[in-house]
């Protein structure tokens, strides 16, 4: 099967750079499965799990808290705000983060719509993290 170059970078380091067959990306408006030869796209990400497939098998799963992805026919670059392999996620960490995000959202109730939206995005991202941690 044709493959493409997948790169996953966080501000602090380059996490992944290798040829893969398929990647499922948690785009802001729904999961996005990318194969080689995909039309060029730039998408925003929400919190969720990126799964990498090679040879019909899921070989890697990483949780990202948000970010961007640039899709080109021969490569995909993911700029993650923060990325952790799903296997190393801890449930208690994720739950603490969810509690924090929910508290921030509650206190942002009287703020501008943009701020409320940002807080909501944090809550959703934390929820996705808890789910990923439970599934791992």
């Amino acid at each position, binding site marked *: 099967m044709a493959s493409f170059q997948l790169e996953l970078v966080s501000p602090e380091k380059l996490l992944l750079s290798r040829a893969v067959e398929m990647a499922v990306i948690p785009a802001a408006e729904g999961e996005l499965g990318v194969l080689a030869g995909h039309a060029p796209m730039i998408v925003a990400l929400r919190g969720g799990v990126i799964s990498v497939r090679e040879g019909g098998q899921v070989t890697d799963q990483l949780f990202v808290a948000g970010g*961007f992805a640039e899709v080109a026919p021969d490569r995909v670059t993911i700029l993650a705000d923060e990325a952790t392999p799903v296997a190393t996620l801890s449930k208690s960490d994720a739950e603490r983060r969810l509690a924090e995000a929910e508290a921030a959202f509650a206190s942002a109730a009287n703020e501008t719509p943009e701020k409320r939206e940002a807080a909501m995005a944090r809550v959703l991202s934390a929820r996705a993290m808890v789910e990923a941690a439970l599934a791992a």
Partner: protein
Amino acid sequence: MPSLKSLRLRINSVKSTRKITQAMKMVAAAKLRRAQTQAEAARPYAERMERMLASLGASVVGAPDAPEMLVGTGADKVHLLVVVTAERGLCGGFNTNVGRFARAQVRALEAEGKTVKIITVGRKGAVYLKRDFASRFVGEISFANKKRIGFEDAAEVSAKITEMLDAGDFDVCTLIYNRFKNVISQTPVGQQLIPTPLPEASADGGAQYEFEPTEEEILARLLPQNLGIQIYRALLDNAAGFYGSQMTAMDNATRNAGEMINKLTLNYNRTRQANITRELIEIISGAEAL
């Protein structure tokens, strides 16, 4: 002529100073290596961010409702300078160079009749610039108790800048820091943050991207992130430069202490011999007088 005892004391004190500077040099060298690796690890993200911004920004920049962070407020009246320095001294001219550069910038801008506001990151810059420009200060950030600079620290700085931009507190924002060229040379530079200077789109940038959600929404999220990454880069350069500069300074200090010890030891030996000769003469002339 100083007494033998005082010379001995001085030699001992210079020796212990040399021990300290030598140890500091060693520590700085180890930390420098760590800071350099960290700076290198951050590079891929910045490069790819630049590429994405180039393909995205070009299409939005002409639009009438382009975000302020990209095109600025349109005015050029109030300048915000973000000055990044180290938290500690004992690093040669590292902090002074940035301070002097910043001071020249402030003077030049004010000579043109612009208003200047200053935010400092790092304790040393604050101390230096407060002497002349205390009235222009709008913020001070210090990471003195942090062992390692993380991206969230940079995000904290960029959040403050974004907040000020939203409040309309400035028109142009410039970041001043020491660019890390190599271990012995760091040069202070001023880098404009807002309006965002767009990187040139690459030659193969002909590909037409689709955007999801809209271009504006992505840009609204990408720009603050880009601001954060630029500041993160400056902080890392600052950290690496600081250790490089400290290492060089401590190396010089160690060498100077060595020279000093040699000189003092020579002096000590001469004095000692002079004393012995004098005592001999006294004994001999005493014996002759009998």
